């Protein structure tokens, strides 16, 4: 894997004449994260080259889902879920990487346009009658919760340049990473503007026995339930055998 990576990097840097037409080339060391029984999180390295000086910003977004945020209120001494805001198309994973502090490379308008940074994330709201203050509070809670789970980056990660043209960044995925298709967007920024961009997919999926269990549970729910019951009953019976004569 490492040798292959190195070879690719060398090729990319050597082939300057050909690459001249391509201001930005980037790829991931792997386009598939397989979640198996022992999965405790993983890293994927993004690498690439540019055709000259410039800065790189990387945005990684997980599959989008509608997400309900509920707020507890005190009712008769008890804390009860009362109000809720449903945010539409919330990425289940979100991380930003850049070669220099964002503010130095790109003005706020550019960041907003490309949804770079948590504050620029476009989130729709399902409920009509919600004050902007409310939405802001619930949105902050949503982001806080995801950050606690390690699914939204707390800070902007680093893109490291090796020389002028070669760059790399390490994307970290925690053990609880949601499955689905991720998009990795790479922006080449010069003179406070995005020159070009590239998007590459990354699939996170369950693999091996786990994937099979999940598929079985989804497709044959009744039989899955029966198997679960019979398996448990067998285990209970087996375990009682050694104690039979005691």
């Amino acid at each position, binding site marked *: 894997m490492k040798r292959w990576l190195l070879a690719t990097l060398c090729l990319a840097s050597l082939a300057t004449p050909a690459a001249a037409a391509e201001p930005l080339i980037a790829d991931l060391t792997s386009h598939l994260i397989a979640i198996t029984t022992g999965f405790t999180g993983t890293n994927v390295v993004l690498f690439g080259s540019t055709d000259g000086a410039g800065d790189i910003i990387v945005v990684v977004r997980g599959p989008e889902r509608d*997400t309900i945020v509920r707020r507890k*209120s005190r009712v008769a001494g008890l804390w009860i879920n009362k109000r809720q805001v449903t945010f539409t198309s919330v990425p289940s994973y979100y991380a930003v990487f850049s070669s220099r502090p964002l503010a130095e490379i790109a003005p706020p308008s550019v960041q907003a346009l490309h949804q770079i940074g948590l504050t620029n994330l476009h989130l729709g709201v399902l409920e009509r009658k919600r004050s902007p203050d409310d939405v802001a509070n619930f949105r902050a809670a949503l982001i806080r919760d995801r950050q606690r789970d390690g699914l939204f980056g707390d800070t902007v990660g680093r893109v490291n340049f090796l020389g002028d043209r070669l760059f790399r960044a390490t994307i970290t995925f925690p053990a609880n990473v949601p499955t689905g298709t991720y998009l990795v967007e790479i922006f080449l920024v010069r003179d406070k503007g995005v020159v070009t961009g590239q998007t590459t997919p990354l699939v996170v999926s369950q693999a091996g026995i786990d994937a099979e269990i999940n598929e079985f549970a989804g497709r044959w*729910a*009744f039989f899955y*339930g029966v198997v679960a*019951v019979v398996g448990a009953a067998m285990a*209970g019976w087996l375990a009682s055998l050694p104690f039979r004569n005691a």
Partner: protein
Amino acid sequence: MDIYLPIAAVSLDVFVLLVLGGAVGFLSGVFGVGGGFLLTPFLIFIGVPHAVAVASSANQLVGASVSGALAHWRRGNVDLQMGLVLLVGGFAGSAVGVWIFAMLRRIGQVELAVSLSYALLLGTLGILMLVESSRAIIRGRRLGASRRKLHQHTWLHGLPLKMRFRRSKLYISALLPLALGFLVGILSAIMGVGGGFVMVPAMIYMLGMPTAMVPGTSLFQIIFVAASVTVLQAIENGTVDIVLALVLLVGGVIGAQLGTRFGQRLRGEQLRALLAVVVLAVAGKLLFDLTVTPEDLFSLAISE
């Protein structure tokens, strides 16, 4: 060592799960309660999603109660006839319960419903049991081995459809165990528990069964109620994690066998007093959690 749970979609330490299963299994063996009322809250605490914790606990219960019921069966402490009547009510109740659970999940009030009904039920039961059993202990000390009536008869026992339960030496209305089974079936589905903690006291105080027959008979019917809840949860909510349930079981079945042995050494009223204390402690904790200001007022859920 971490293990990835396919349905829960989280990684957890195997040893934590084994110890948790073992401790709960021990309680189940001693008292004839499934121990689900402790298992579910603990699973949620270590990061298993609420709905998965409830459904997988039910699955784990199947195995734990098979193991426990077999141990009691070998000692002749299972009233098969009573168990079957309870079961009929139980099946109906668990179907209703799974439906209620799906509805609560939609409106986002699962946690509240579970905690509140737990706390109220356990609190009432715990106090009643504690009073009764401490009275029995005091009386036993004062009078030595004086004989008393097998059980008290109330108007409840006089309802129609009377049936004779030979092993339990009872002649009571079948409506009583039917209703009890139904109620426990609902609880099973909503809370992911076998309902033993309701069943056991109710069998002693409401039905008037002999204490020795109670744990075995309770476990016997829990097997089937938990089995039907597991299948229904798998179909209705898709939240049964078979890997989680099996890991919990490995610890649980061993704990249950040891617990059964330990339970035999205790006298009936001591057993009841001890169970009362456990039940009250759980009720207190649940109520406390509902009233204490949460660390984060906000919670997230993926909408379907």
